[in-house]
């Protein structure tokens, strides 16, 4: 069964959206920093930053077996009096929850998606108000060609 890029992105977003407090950004992932402060906490965005042929035989009737890089970005608010280590650690724990959510089975959303975790990158904004966490995953899926 094939899964388009948009279906893959939406499937990952659905997994994260189910986490308590998380809401999807209304601003594209590339401009994630433009989210207003008042709603930035636990805002997330899912980007398909790149996709490649996964090296399988291509058959138009079946689709292209693709490998897509899925990038998840979310913000975690650091309270000024508890920025470090209390909230910093809480942000790391939340990151773990997001990874677990993304790695859950997609059977009920989009079958035949296989996803693996690659890496994390973390940054604290200059204002020290937020920790921005970037997660990268690789998803294997069959891209429809019909």
């Amino acid at each position, binding site marked *: 069964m094939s899964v388009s890029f948009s279906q893959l992105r939406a499937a990952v977003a659905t997994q994260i959206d189910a986490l308590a407090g998380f809401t999807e950004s209304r601003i594209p992932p590339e401009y994630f920093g433009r989210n207003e402060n008042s709603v930035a*906490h636990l805002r997330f965005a899912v980007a398909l930053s790149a996709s490649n042929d996964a090296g399988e035989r291509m058959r138009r009737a079946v689709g292209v077996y693709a490998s897509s890089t899925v990038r998840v970005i979310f913000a975690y608010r650091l*309270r000024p009096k508890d920025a470090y280590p209390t909230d910093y650690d809480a942000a790391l724990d939340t990151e773990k929850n997001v990874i677990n959510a993304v790695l859950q089975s997609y059977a009920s959303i989009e079958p035949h998606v296989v996803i693996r975790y690659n890496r994390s990158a973390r940054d604290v904004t200059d204002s020290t108000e937020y920790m921005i966490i970037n997660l990268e995953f690789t998803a294997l899926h069959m891209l429809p060609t019909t």
Partner: protein
Amino acid sequence: MGVEYTPFATDTKTVQLFEREKANETEITIYRNGGKVHVISGTYTLIKPDGTKLIDAQPVTISGNSAFYTLTASDLDSSLVFGEGYIENWCLVLDQHSDHDHDFRRMAAVVRRRLYPTVYDGDLTAIYSDLADLRPSTLTSYQQYIDDAWWQMMRRLRIEAGGYEYLILSSEVFFDAHRHFTLYLIWRDFHSSLGQSNGRYMDLAQEHYRLYQDEWKRINFVYDYDNDGKADDANQRSAKQPVIYTASPGSRGRFRWYGRGRY
């Protein structure tokens, strides 16, 4: 050899107010080096404006390292003159320098009613919905900032504006100034924790400080000058007291008279 002087702090925010014809508890806590100083024993004296003693060296109750004295309604009966000029004298023996006692004096006033603030936490989150989420984990409320802002405003009212808070009947007039000043204290405190020279918290602090100053200038209230418990004229509101300059202009002042027709 003289008695060694140690500048103990009494944590006195403003003049002590006693409501006439009611029981009033008064309390003093002595601080030094970041902690309470243990009070061993003490007496309490309340001196009237005419110099006579309303309460004369009565023993205090000590609880939690603070000294307490309860003035009964009959102590504060209707014969007392309303107003300022009462003096509390706490004569305490502390566990520091316990070889002698210490006299801590505080000004007091007998009033008809105290003035109460109108701002609470919900008024802060009403305009900053994420403020509750930013609250430090050590606090359950922003009350300490609300209280500090209130005490600063009450001192400013007395010192700068020459008014007595207990004669003000319309407490709501302080609402905006109090809320802005509280927010200024909160945002400034947040900013101070982040170790940067500017930023959103500092911007907000400065904005609310300006708004506080604007609101402070605009405050006018229903006052009870003659202390009869009624508004002097409910439709005639009083601004804070004007500044009256008692010195003549300087020799190069703008309106200096230099002779006929010359200014």
